C-alpha cells in the first residue's frame, strides 16, 4: 500500500506556547518498500509515528493510504512501539491475538495464524509464556508478531529496538528483514541507528531538528537479502558515512527554522 504524507504540520500546545513539531513535511513510502527515518532527538519522529498510527491528527496537511485520505486508526496499519507494550496478564499468544480479539475475530484460524507468527519471529516455544517471563528482545518479538497479525499493508515502527542491548539489536535487525521479506508490507521505520537504517531500508529519510522536515532522501541500493557480509561491505560503509556526516554538530541539519 502506498503511504503518503503531504504538507503535514503538527503543532503541540505547551506551557510555553505552541511548539511546532513538524512543519510542511512531505513523505512517501512506496508499496512493499522499507523506508527508515533518521533524525536527532526531538525532531518529531514520534509525532510521525503517531500520525500514521492514527493517534494524532495533523494540524494541516493530509495522510493518505493508496490515495485515500484518512485520519484515525486503520486496520491496514500495524504499529510497533518503542516499548513492547504487552499486556502482562496475557500470554504471548494471547497478546498476539489481541487485535483480532478486540474485533471479535479470534477463532481457531486466528489462533493458528498467531502461532505461525510467533514461529516466524522465533518464539515457537514461548507461546504460553507471560511477558514477565520473557527477555526484552523476546517481548519486542511478540510486539512485532502482534503488529503483523492483521496482515497489515503498512507497518510503522517507532525505534522498536532502542531499549535492547547492542547484540540483541543486531539479531533483531536480521529477524526483521527476514520477516519483512516474507510479508512485504510498506514499512516506516524510525531509528537512531544509522547501521540499522542502512541495513534494513530501500530508502533512508533524514529529518531536521524541530520543526521536523525531510532534508535528505537517500536510496539504498544494496542487494537483498542483506547479510552480515553486507554490513562489512565498502558500499555499506560509504552510505553510512554519508549519513553520519549529516549528524555532525556543524551540519545544516541542526539549524531550525526561526
Amino acid at each position: 500500500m502506498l503511504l503518503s504524507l503531504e504538507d503535514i504540520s503538527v503543532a503541540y500546545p505547551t506551557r510555553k506556547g505552541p511548539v511546532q513539531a513538524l512543519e510542511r513535511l512531505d513523505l512517501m513510502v512506496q508499496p512493499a518498500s522499507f523506508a527508515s527515518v533518521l533524525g536527532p532527538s526531538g525532531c518529531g519522529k514520534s509525532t510521525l509515528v503517531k500520525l500514521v498510527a492514527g493517534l494524532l491528527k495533523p494540524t494541516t496537511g493530509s495522510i493518505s493510504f493508496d490515495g485515500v485520505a484518512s485520519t484515525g486508526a486503520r486496520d491496514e496499519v500495524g504499529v510497533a512501539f518503542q516499548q513492547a507494550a504487552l499486556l502482562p496478564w496475557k500470554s504471548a499468544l494471547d497478546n498476539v491475538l489481541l487485535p483480532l480479539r478486540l474485533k471479535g475475530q479470534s477463532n481457531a484460524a486466528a489462533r493458528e495464524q498467531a502461532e505461525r507468527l510467533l514461529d516466524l519471529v522465533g518464539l515457537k516455544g514461548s507461546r504460553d509464556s507471560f511477558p514477565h517471563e520473557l527477555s526484552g528482545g523476546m517481548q519486542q518479538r511478540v510486539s512485532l508478531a502482534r503488529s503483523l497479525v492483521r496482515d497489515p499493508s503498512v507497518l510503522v515502527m517507532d525505534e522498536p529496538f532502542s531499549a535492547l542491548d547492542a547484540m540483541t539489536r543486531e539479531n533483531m535487525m536480521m529477524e526483521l528483514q527476514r520477516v519483512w521479506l516474507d510479508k512485504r508490507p510498506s514499512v516506516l521505520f524510525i531509528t537512531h541507528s544509522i547501521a540499522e537504517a542502512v541495513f534494513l531500508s530501500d530508502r533512508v529519510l533524514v529529518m531536521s531538528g524541530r520543526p521536523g522536515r525531510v532534508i535528505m532522501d537517500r536510496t539504498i541500493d544494496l542487494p537483498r537479502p542483506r547479510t552480515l557480509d553486507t554490513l562489512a561491505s565498502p558500499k555499506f560503509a560509504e552510505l553510512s558515512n554519508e549519513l553520519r556526516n549529516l549528524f555532525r554538530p556543524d551540519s545544516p541539519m541542526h539549524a531550525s527554522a526561526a
Partner: protein
Amino acid sequence: MSSLRSFLLKLLPFVLLLLVWHGLVEGLRIPSRLMPGPIEAGQRIYLGLISDGDLWAHLWQTLRSTLMGYALGCVLALVIGSVLAMNRVLELLFYPLILLMQAVPKVAIAPLVLLWLGFDARSIVTLVALICFFPIFVGTFIGVRSTPEVLRDLFRTLDASGFKTFLHCSLPHASGSIIAGMQVGWGFALVGCVVMEFIMGIGGAGFLIDNSANALDTVTAVASMVLLGVMGYLGGMLIAAVKQRMIFWEGPARHG
C-alpha cells in the same frame, strides 16, 4: 527457606503473644474479672463454639452483616471509582463530594443512619458500605487512572472503544490496586459493623463484647474480641490469597 520453617515462623508471633499474655496475667496476678488469661479465654471459646455453641449466632450475625455491607461497598466503589477515573468531567464534579463525605467519620454518623433507616439490618449494612467505600474507591480510581499511556495508545491504534479499553486494559491493570483497597476496606467494614452493634445492642459480636463487659463477664468479652480478631484476620488472609492468584505477573514470582 522450607515451607515448614516459614510456617512455623509465621506462627511464632502468635505463640509469643499468648505466652506474654499468660505471663502477665499470672505474674501480676490480674483477676480474671479484669483480664482473663489465654487459658480461660480459650476455655470460654471452646464452650462458646463447641460444647455449648452460644457464641455462634452472634458471630454469624456479624459476619453476615459485614459481608453484605462489604459487598455493597465494593460494588459502589468499583463502579464509581471506574467511572470517575475514565471521565474527567465527572471526576471534577464528584471527587470533591466524595472527599467531603470522607471527612465525616462514618462512626460519628451511625446514630443518624439509625434514625434515617430504622433499627434493623439495613442500617448496619448501609454504615458498613459507607465506611469501607473510600479505600476501595481510591484503589479503583488510582488503579484505572494509572494505566500506562502506551497501553492506552495501543488500544487506540486497534480502534477499541472506551468501554473495551476499560474492560480489557484498564480494569485488569487496576486489579492489584483494587484488591489492596479491598484489603483495607475489609478491616474498616468489620469496625463499622461492630460499632453499629454496640449502638443497637441487639446481637452480633459487638453486642456480645459490650453486653458482657457491662455485666463484668470479662471472659466472654475477651473471648469474643479474640474471635472477632480471628474473623478479621481470616478475611484479610483470604483476600491476600485471591490477590496472589490473580496478580501473578507482579511480586516475588517474577523473573527474567
